[in-house]
């Protein structure tokens, strides 16, 4: 029977579709995701002063040219 239960009991109810009821792998993914956002925020904050406006120079390239 599908349910929406959630309990912090160290087990995963595999009938629950509650996103907070996570397996080990999902929990790892969620932790990585949250840490990733924090890292991105911190790195963005630290590098803000070093970022300068980009100067675009139009120049032809042969990278995708069919030779």
């Amino acid at each position, binding site marked *: 029977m599908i349910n929406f239960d959630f309990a912090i009991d160290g087990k*995963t109810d595999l*009938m629950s579709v509650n996103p907070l009821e996570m397996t080990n*792998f999902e929990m*790892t*993914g969620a932790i*990585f*995701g*949250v840490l990733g956002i924090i890292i991105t925020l911190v790195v963005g904050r630290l590098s803000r002063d070093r970022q300068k406006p980009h100067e675009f120079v139009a120049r032809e390239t042969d990278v995708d040219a*069919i030779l």
Partner: protein
Amino acid sequence: MNEDEDAKMWRVIEKYGVVFCRYYLGGFNLVSGLNYFILFWPQPRMADSVGDTFVLAAMELNLFAFAKVIEIIAGACLVFNRFVPLALVLLMPVTMNIFLTNVPWSPLPHIQLSVTRNLVMHLILLGAYANYFYPLLRFRTAPQPVWRNPLRVKRSL
């Protein structure tokens, strides 16, 4: 809230949403792959007999180990933000196989939801990095063999 602020807010949600998806999928696959070789958690088993037979056959053929190596490499690429489009392409067969073997066959709604979420995140990331895939949509193509100009690979790095 005016239109400009609205667009700015959506851009921030988009940026951090993509970051979350990349780290989530990367972390999930990296740990799932490592767990196969190191076994810090019990290896998940398919709940139905057909799925379990499939997994056992894949393990016998060493296909499972191959998939887990791909998970480790692609997961690390996603976490460390290196070769992300290549990692997404490498990982797609794994994500698709897991989706196709679980969603119609697994009797556990949580597993069905989990593999669907992974596939959706994978598709979001493919969409987010679409600029690297547009050349694949060329209608008319001409070969440019890599052996004619091997340095091209080095230049692409």
